[in-house]
């Protein structure tokens, strides 16, 4: 295992007098799934938003693969392989499911001025390869017949699947997932867990905010526990369950 893919150091975010994030530091190791847990209002989603670039940090540093990305706009972080999904799935409703996946592909010739001037001939081949890749993902996620449905007609679970497939189309280094299991049926949850474990085995690193502690225990090598904007503890879930401090902050079921 090389150096950490993501390093978060002394992250702070204040809203007026409220310290939503108050000096948070942790690492995400390459090819691992790290969980970020804690009670409601602990600041988990804020940490994720700061890492993703949606919210600017008041203090602290974020490094991706050794490079300081603290002040980088969101789209540039994404181009460096830092990809996030949202708590509420945000699909492009008026595009088809397949198009949602195609949009996500990086470095598309047809998106650039050269593609505008060159016309279809300049991007047709790349587009064909992307369509194949996207159809492969749809098959993996059991949605091959949904390819041509407008994304806004999909169910909640399917929209979430689209978000994850879209993220995978970007060939990310680090995937930030904000409660990917919320609202999924137990069987879908199990399926998604298997997919995420498979991705980690292929070398992808994941940072997962999740409420379902059983899922966290099954997936995550390391768990970071937050409460009131601070990191309370980190380690493996089985150890953390025993910690009095964690139990007090987070009533574990």
């Amino acid at each position, binding site marked *: 295992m090389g150096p950490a893919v993501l390093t978060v150091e002394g992250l702070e975010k204040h809203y007026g007098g409220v310290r939503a994030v108050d000096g948070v530091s942790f690492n995400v190791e390459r090819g691992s799934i790290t969980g970020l847990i804690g009670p409601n209002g602990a600041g988990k989603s804020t940490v994720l938003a700061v890492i993703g670039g949606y919210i600017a940090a008041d203090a602290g540093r974020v490094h991706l693969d050794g490079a300081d990305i603290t002040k980088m706009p969101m*789209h540039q972080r994404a181009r460096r392989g830092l990809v996030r999904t949202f708590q509420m799935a*945000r699909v492009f409703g*008026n595009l088809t499911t397949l198009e949602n996946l195609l949009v996500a592909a990086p470095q598309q010739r*047809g998106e650039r001025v050269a593609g505008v001037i060159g016309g279809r001939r300049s991007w047709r081949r790349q587009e064909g390869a992307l369509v194949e890749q996207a159809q492969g993902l749809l098959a993996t996620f059991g949605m091959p017949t949904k390819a041509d449905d407008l994304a806004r007609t999909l169910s909640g679970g399917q929209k979430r699947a689209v978000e994850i497939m879209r993220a995978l189309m970007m060939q990310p280094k680090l995937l930030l997932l904000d409660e990917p299991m919320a609202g999924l049926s137990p069987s879908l949850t199990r399926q998604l867990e298997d997919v995420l474990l498979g991705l980690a085995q292929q070398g992808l690193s994941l940072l997962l905010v999740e409420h379902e502690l059983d899922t966290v225990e099954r997936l995550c090598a390391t768990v970071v526990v937050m409460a009131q904007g601070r990191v309370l503890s980190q380690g493996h879930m089985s150890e953390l369950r025993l910690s009095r401090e964690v139990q007090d902050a987070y009533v574990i079921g």
Partner: protein
Amino acid sequence: MAWEYYLVVMLVYLGTDLLAVWGLNLEFGVAGVANLAYIVVVAAGAYTYAVLTLGPSSNLGGFQQYIGGFTLPWPLALLAGAAAGAVVGTIIGITGLKRLRQDYQAVAMLVVSLMVATVVSADVGLFNGSAGLALIPNPFSTLDPETARWAYVGLVAVCCVLGFFVLRRFTTGPLGRTLRAVRDDDVAASAMGKDVIRLRLLVQAVGGGMGGLSGALLAGFIGGWSPSAWVYIETLAFLSCVIVGGIGSDRGATLGTVIVAVLLLQGVQFLPQFPSSPGLSEDLGWIVLATATIVFIWLRPQGVLPERRPRYLGKAVSPPPG
């Protein structure tokens, strides 16, 4: 013949309206920028064409004042009009750079439109103030009037064909798909590596260029251009074309222009006139237009010819109503 003159006027208006509505549909319908200052780019094109073809302002005894004053060949002046629209469109786009929500963006741009109109009306030195510019040269003034009129229709038609060709390069393919993604959810799009600001400015420039060309063609045909030709409400007329035709659909915008700009706004001119209220037919046109727009927003928000997406398993999909 009167009907022939009327037909020429209608065709020129249809062509210039089409260019403008296509440009606005690219900005609003495809990329989701609610540019309520769109008419300003049309004006920019018209004024640019005027001051580049009128010659020095002292020429005609200095009865009208304006900046510049050149005698460029008309094709160059048309291109310059389009370029001016692109530049002004980009500048207007900068007002939406901050992550303003679409509704705030619309308000900001509406204010820009009002401000520009106020300044241009008040500052006589710019473009002769509220009186506007007259005697703008017609490119075909050396031909006999009838040939000149039809030559102008031909010129507008050529510009429309070229304009549509350029437009399709932006609304279809991977770029069109990405722009529609930005429209549907700009946060998600930038989380996927899309440079939303750059894309929006690009669209503002291209849409602005089409609007500028539309204005330049109008100025050359009418021979005059003043602030009363580009009040903010004209943007709403273009917007109605987009909404009635089908937001985000090029075919829809085309049909919407025929329905709204030609059938509705011109149709009311044929109603019986009442001498007691001379402006009635024009006002009636706006009332019919506004009503049609509201009816569509309520009952058929996707428009007459809805946006269609490419299908990979079969033929193209249309959205379900609602």
